């Protein structure tokens, strides 16, 4: 213990630890405490309520529906983003004319805030005043304007599409990073051995991309699970609660209906769901990789700038 106190490492870590504990740790405790209380319309604590708030959740059909929908939303957006980003990254890793421009375009959605993206899409998807339908009708791909956000099913699908679109830049960047760190000599050897491009991809690229894939999955799941602006701006969880996910439901409960105790309980439930997911995923990855799993304590073996 004394050795630890003397260690410079401790003092170097301390500021970052203090800041995160302070900004993230304290509110979590505050939430946990609030979720066990009866809370007034405007957040005054009225007294200990035990697990009442959690009990209410179990019996709440809207909560269950939102939970299921959050699962669908997260799974679809993350899968979609990865399935699209992988080939895009492979293409962007090729040497072709205008690659720089292409990379910039693909990264572009990253530079607008989600809120603004959602506002623009909502305006563009407007049934009769929006340019999306107008364009499709001009091209003759559509006879009647489609009301994209009128039903929960179609609206949710559209939101998932937008969700995928805004997740592509981040995911592609991770994959591109992975691809450009690939050791060239392995490919050269494979080429000499007469491996086809597909075989190269299947047996060299994909396995080497695996750690990048894992990080893309974990981070995207966390971000998408918690993502609020797209659904909120486009449909506010409607119509008839048909596109509510946990965060939008939580927001309504907390800030419209003033049920802060129940909202805190949902917050905490969400935290534990993500926590469980991450543990499970890390465990699965570890188990799958066996002893090859890179020990985080070891310095990474790659060096900068593979032979050009």
């Amino acid at each position, binding site marked *: 213990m004394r050795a630890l106190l003397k260690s410079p490492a401790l003092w170097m870590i301390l500021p970052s630890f203090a800041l995160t504990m302070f900004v993230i740790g304290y509110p979590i405790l505050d939430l946990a405490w609030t979720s066990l209380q009866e809370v007034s319309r*405007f*957040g005054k604590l009225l007294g200990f309520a035990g697990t009442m708030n959690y009990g209410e959740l179990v019996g709440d059909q809207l909560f269950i529906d939102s939970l299921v929908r959050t699962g669908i939303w997260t799974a679809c957006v993350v899968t979609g983003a990865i399935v699209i980003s992988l080939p895009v990254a492979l293409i962007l890793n090729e040497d072709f004319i205008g690659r720089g421009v292409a990379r910039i375009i693909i990264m572009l959605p990253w530079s607008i805030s989600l809120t603004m993206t959602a506002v623009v899409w909502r305006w563009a998807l*407007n049934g009769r005043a929006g340019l999306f339908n107008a364009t499709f009708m001009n091209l003759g791909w559509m006879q009647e304007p489609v009301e994209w956000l009128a039903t929960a099913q179609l609206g949710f699908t559209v939101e998932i599409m937008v969700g995928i679109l805004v997740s592509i830049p981040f995911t592609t960047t991770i994959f591109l990073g992975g691809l450009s760190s690939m050791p060239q000599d392995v490919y050269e050897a494979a080429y000499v051995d007469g491996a086809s491009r597909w075989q190269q991809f299947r047996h060299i690229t994909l396995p080497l991309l695996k750690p990048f894939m894992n990080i893309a999955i974990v981070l995207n799941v966390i971000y998408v699970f918690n993502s609020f602006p797209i659904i909120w701006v486009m449909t506010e969880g409607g*119509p008839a609660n048909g596109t509510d996910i946990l965060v939008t439901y939580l*927001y309504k409960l907390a800030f419209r209906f003033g049920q*802060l105790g129940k909202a805190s309980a949902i917050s905490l439930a969400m935290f534990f769901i993500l926590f469980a997911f991450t543990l499970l995923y890390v465990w699965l990855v570890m188990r799958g990789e066996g002893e090859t799993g890179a020990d985080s304590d070891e310095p990474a073996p790659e060096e900068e700038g593979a032979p050009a």
Partner: protein
Amino acid sequence: MTYQFKRATVAAVAALGMLGFAAAASAKTEVRFVVAEYSSYSGKHYEEVAAAFEKQNPDIDVKVEVVPWNTLLQRLTTDIAGGTAPDISIIGTRWLLDFAAQGVAEPIDGYLTPEFKGTFIDTFMTPSVIDGKTMGLPVAASARAMMVNLDLFEKAGAKVPTNWDELYAAAQKISKLKDTFGFGLQGKEIETDAYFYYALWTHGGDIFGKDGKSGLNSPEALEAATLYKKMIDEGLTQPSPTNYNREDVFNLFKQGKVGMVFTFPMLIPQVKAEAPNLKYQVLPFPAKRAKATYGVTDTLMMFSTSKVKKEAWKFIEFAFKDEWRTQFDHGEGFLPVTKNVAAEDFYKTDPDISAFAAGLPYAKFAPTVENWEEIADTTVQALQKIYLGQQAPKAALDEAAAKIDKIRGK
């Protein structure tokens, strides 16, 4: 305890007290005022009022905080929960009971002089009186009415309606025109329920019955909802109303694509700017068993936690002077809440505004009940299920009524 220690303590306390005193003497009294943003004009107006007020009262500093409507309740909730509530705020009158019941709103009877009270139009004063106490002042008001596109009526050979049967007939004729719909129906977001109350009231129903139970399962409500649903199914409204919020419906009207919409006075300047060639007329809502309009007021409320109530009240009295009120009402397109502004020629002679104001004698207001937001949301969900055909009108309304009664503990 030693003498020395005591002396040190006394000195320290005295020093602290002096510091506190010095701070109080040098600092201006700050009044925090949350202004809900009706349009980009709202903030500008109250900044101007505050500046003029500060000139006359150099010891008071009015801080205007402009907040968008959609986030106002969230803002106030976090503020109250965090203990940083402002001193005064504009709020939706529909929330007032929640604020009053939780002891957040300060009764203002003690401040309100008879002369000052006399400047307000009584109709607008009543919604802010709760259990005999005045909890706030009306700060903005509008009444709702029907707006019709005269060109479309002429083209379709339809007659401008005064009752629901005529509206239905006119909608049929107008909808026969290409790419045009008779009646614009709002189906999502803020005031979707109001668009239904218009029909509910004019059919003779009400939001809450005399026994305080939800009126959504009344025969009148069923009749109104069935009529809306029938018009959707027959293509007399724009397709998929659940994709249209208030603003989207009005945009259709500006595009000249719908014959009739239910709207507020604030739409008039927009139509003039964005669709200058549109020929329109403002009319009362179609009536069946009753005449009705929706009177909407917003309330200026003082917080019970405020430490500067006297100064805040001084500012309130200042802001309600005629010169400011007339600027504000004209700038936003509201109906006047004070008698003097209402007496201006404009509000009597302007055909559009006077048509909106004509409904005031029989205007209904949103009931001031607790948990109104949740009740309204329940109503909206039921309406969306009906409009989408997910549930039959009767089943959806009965279910919503039961849920609302449960929320209210009836």
